[in-house]
């Protein structure tokens, strides 16, 4: 199925630097022109953003393989070779959570939750009725050192002891949080035309839903309004209950859940449980997929399946 969304002009790239025209990697010469240089004049453009979960046309062997792997669970490798100790420990926890998810003891609240075809307000009402906790926060941008001046063109930053420094790695550097405005730029004021981020957590089973009702206008990948489902690792409350104020960080996210209810790694890397880069080249060859580009296409399908575009209000 194909969904159409309207993407504001400000998310369109005004200028793409042409690729280099000389050989910079052995055997590789870039030759494409600067097709994106023309500024857009229309306020909105209709873009085909076919959801990867529903894009199983059968025409693309990598897409077909990725969707098949999601459904069969073959997308997972919870004991990858050469895993770092950090990755190994994380994947052990994920493995336990996957077992609980399969048994209906974790994330049951999000498994059958339908996101497709709904707007943010509809989902908000459904989630509250289903017992989810809700927190709305301004969508955060990066944390940065707090600049207070300039010295010969070099930024001067505040220190927490009242001093100043030009060293951004100073141990006493003062930091400030930035937020994402609707035009994709950042501000330090959460009230300065900043877009919202809604987070919902089911306190009993650790199911989590993130909704960006105005998208993330600063994102090259997903500026459009969208939602995702996930299962958290641990609850910090009494008897392990989950708390929307404390437990929703990326590091506490075990895995994402597709709209159809299948668990997938939260990022498309072996570190988070993705099997290789979409299977071995031999496996991919069986599907007549060009190995050099198949890992990106495979990863794109997996991550596309973990996010659902929202309907307009």
């Amino acid at each position, binding site marked *: 199925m194909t969904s159409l969304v309207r*993407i504001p002009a400000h998310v369109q790239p005004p200028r793409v630097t042409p*690729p*280099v025209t000389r050989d910079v990697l052995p055997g590789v010469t870039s030759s494409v022109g600067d097709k994106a240089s023309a500024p857009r004049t229309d306020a909105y453009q209709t873009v085909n953003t076919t959801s990867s979960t529903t894009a199983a046309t059968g025409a693309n062997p990598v897409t077909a393989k990725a969707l098949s792997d999601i459904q069969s669970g073959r997308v997972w490798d919870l004991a990858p070779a050469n895993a770092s100790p950090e990755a190994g420990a994380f994947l052990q926890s994920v493995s336990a959570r996957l077992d609980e998810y399969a048994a209906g003891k974790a994330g049951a609240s999000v498994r059958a939750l339908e996101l497709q075809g709904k707007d943010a307000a509809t989902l908000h009402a459904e989630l509250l009725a289903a017992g989810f906790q809700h927190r709305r926060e301004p969508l955060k941008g*990066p944390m940065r050192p707090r600049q207070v001046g300039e010295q010969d063109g*070099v930024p001067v930053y505040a220190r927490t002891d009242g001093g100043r420094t030009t*060293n951004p790695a100073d141990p006493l*550097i003062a930091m400030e949080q930035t937020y994402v405005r609707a035009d994709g730029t950042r501000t330090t004021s959460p009230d300065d035309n900043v877009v919202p981020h809604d987070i919902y957590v089911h306190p009993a089973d650790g199911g989590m839903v993130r909704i960006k009702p105005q998208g993330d206008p600063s994102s090259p990948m997903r500026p*459009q309004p969208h939602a995702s489902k996930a299962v958290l690792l641990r609850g910090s409350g009494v008897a392990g209950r989950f708390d929307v104020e404390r437990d929703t960080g990326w590091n506490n996210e075990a895995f994402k859940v597709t709209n159809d209810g299948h668990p997938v790694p939260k990022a498309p890397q*072996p570190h988070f449980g993705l099997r290789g880069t979409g299977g071995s080249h031999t496996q991919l060859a069986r599907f007549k997929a060009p190995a050099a580009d198949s890992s*990106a296409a495979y990863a794109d399908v997996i991550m596309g399946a973990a996010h659902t575009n929202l309907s307009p209000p």
Partner: protein
Amino acid sequence: MITHFSLTPSGKPAAVLQDVIAHATRDPAVIHVDRGHGVHWLLFCDSAATALDERARLARGETVASAVGSVVVEGNSYEVNQECSEPARARLASLVRFILKSHGPCFVHDADAQANVSAQVQQDPEILFR
């Protein structure tokens, strides 16, 4: 691994940015997009071939694939997103190592743990990647 982090290099922001873009775009699998208003995207693809596909998507006004790694630059703040495919992540890591080495010391903030990790990264930059 720290999947999402921001860094702020030392030195004059405009000169650093120019050097970083020049270094990054020597690799044809990296795309630079000047968004205007001082915002720049560096997009890391699996290969030169996939970068051509992504350029075509951008030219059509579409978003880039989820498998692409990104550094979003605004002013002297570099927001790094390693939530991408493994080959793209390796390219992105290479650029971050270059920034840390050529334009350090850098402020580094772990967005996932909400912690200033500048000192740890100065000691061992690989904590960002392993």
